[in-house]
């Protein structure tokens, strides 16, 4: 294929994907499927946010639930404590997440590899236990959002469609930011750090500082995903906000699609979330167990056979077949 043809194909498939995502709620009017569509986009947002620090910078955080939880809790906390519109809590949640990122990231980013993962688990678990025992933020019961929209700022709609387009817009912005990051200095620095931190530092890359930048961007968008979740579902408790499985889901989705690639998280979400809803629908309550059993199996298989995820599988194994056939 000529480079021009490759470009046409690439932009063409991208346009098709975008058009399909835009048209989805117009074509699929069934409420259940529309809800699954919203969940796919929401998971794609949080996974793409994780991807910045976990994929590009190679710092496998298992504590991103703390950012997600901060984003999910603040809007509902403002509503519950002072009857303020939840949307006001969205920027606040992102600010708190930024603060947490600096507070937790500064010491833990000095650690490498497995240490960093363990430290982030520890920090997130600490925060979860504090939240689950703190009456002011709902303790073990959780927080509820406004049932009916008082003003437009409550952002409580009955239909999924407004949320869906909001999610799509946020995802587009996040992917654009990631795309810019890939092509600017910070992106090169992060990939250098991932490939070999010591080597990168010896070449003058301020590794720790740029890892922190990556964590901050990632944390802010993860918090935004949490806020969107809270605005949409209208309820959050310590498990759905700060639970370790929240972090795990971001990691699995990213790893399945391809960590460190722009569209990996979206592809992962497009596969895993419908699968998750299918097992839940088929097996009801015990489906939760089955879902995570599947998750575990999928992660082990990815780790064992294709740590680069589906995108790398495509690039390394499938695409060469086409090229050979063309010749």
């Amino acid at each position, binding site marked *: 294929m000529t480079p021009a043809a490759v470009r046409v194909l690439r932009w063409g498939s991208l346009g098709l994907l975008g058009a399909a995502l835009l048209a989805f709620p117009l074509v699929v009017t069934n409420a259940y499927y529309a809800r699954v569509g919203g969940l796919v986009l929401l998971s794609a947002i949080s996974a793409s946010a994780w991807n910045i620090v*976990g994929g590009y910078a*190679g710092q*496998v955080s*298992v504590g991103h639930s703390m950012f997600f939880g901060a984003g999910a809790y603040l809007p509902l906390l403002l509503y519950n404590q002072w009857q303020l519109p939840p949307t006001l809590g969205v920027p606040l949640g992102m600010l708190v997440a930024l603060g947490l990122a600096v507070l937790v990231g500064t*010491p*833990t980013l*000095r*650690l490498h*590899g*497995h*240490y960093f*993962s*363990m*430290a982030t*688990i*520890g*920090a997130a*678990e*600490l925060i979860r*236990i*504090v939240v689950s*025992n703190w009456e002011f933020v709902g303790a073990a019961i959780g927080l509820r959002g406004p049932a009916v929209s008082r003003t437009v700022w409550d952002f409580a709609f009955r239909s999924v469609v407004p949320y869906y387009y909001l999610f799509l817009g946020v995802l587009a912005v996040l992917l654009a930011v990631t795309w810019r990051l890939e092509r600017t200095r910070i992106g090169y620095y992060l990939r250098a750090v991932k490939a070999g931190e010591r080597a990168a530092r010896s070449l003058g890359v301020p590794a720790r500082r740029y890892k922190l930048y990556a964590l901050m961007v990632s944390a802010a968008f993860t918090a935004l995903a949490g806020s969107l979740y809270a605005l949409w579902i209208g309820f959050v408790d310590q498990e759905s906000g700060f639970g*370790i499985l929240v972090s*795990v889901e971001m*990691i699995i989705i990213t*790893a399945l699609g391809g*960590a460190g690639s722009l569209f990996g998280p979206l592809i992962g979400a497009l596969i895993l979330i419908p699968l998750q809803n299918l097992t839940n629908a088929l097996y009801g309550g*015990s489906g939760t*167990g*089955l*879902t*995570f*059993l599947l*998750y*575990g*199996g*999928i*992660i*082990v*298989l*990815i*780790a*064992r056979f294709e*740590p680069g995820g589906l995108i790398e599988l495509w690039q390394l194994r499938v695409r060469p077949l086409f090229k050979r056939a063309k010749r």
Partner: protein
Amino acid sequence: MVLIQVVMGGLLLGAVYALFSSGLTLIWGMMNVVNFAHGEFVMMGMYTAYWVYTLAHGGVWSFTPLAALLLFLVGIAVYAGLIRNVLRGPMLGQILSTFGLALFIRYAAFWAFSADFRTLPDTLVGGTVELGVIRLSVPQLAAGSVAFLLTIGMHLMLTRTSIGSQMLAVAEDRSAAMLMGIRPDRMQALAWGLGAANAGIAGALIATFYYISPTVGESLALTAFVVVCLGGFGSVPGALAAGLSIGVVQSLSAYALGPIYKDIVVYAIFVLVLWVRPQGLFGRF
């Protein structure tokens, strides 16, 4: 008087922490892999105890060795089927592999045994002993002392026997050990077998007085991380000292501040240690 009692209880629980954490630290020391599924190994040991008792009415003396054997085989299988292949790959793959394994085992148990909390009957190893002014329950005393002896045994095995020296040699320098005629692959498999067996024994021991559920491994694994971080990665004596201290800290904070604070204090210590001294108290580097 109460204080001595609390400290003793903490030490006994801490010895069990030390036992399964020494497995985690051994695996880390040998090949720089954190086994995120370690808590699930403990959980498998607990279920082994439960089912051996429930189905065959076996006592402590039958289910503890059985749990050790079973988990030894599981450890070897995990190494041969999974870890050996991800060791040379990227770090994300290493973390994902044991993490996925943890989820898989946890929710396989969830699916097979349901989420019910189970316990072994108190009468299995019952009673209390009075030591002067304090009173200790026999299951805890037995579990604590067996775990303490096994952890020391593990240290002696590593430092005093030929096979232990071979393992330490592989931990020190894999290729140099290979040139000396040691097979690193076998030693690493052995580390996984022994590490998992330790977790299995610890699980069987605490099953006599602890609740058994598919998700019990999660908090136990976090405790093991704290112990290993505090004691220093790769150090068995460090794990022993740290395990005992964490046990005492846990029971003291539960006693002085209330039960919910015991985990908060432990995780706070964890974050603090990683913050100021990531190599741990007895770390080698």
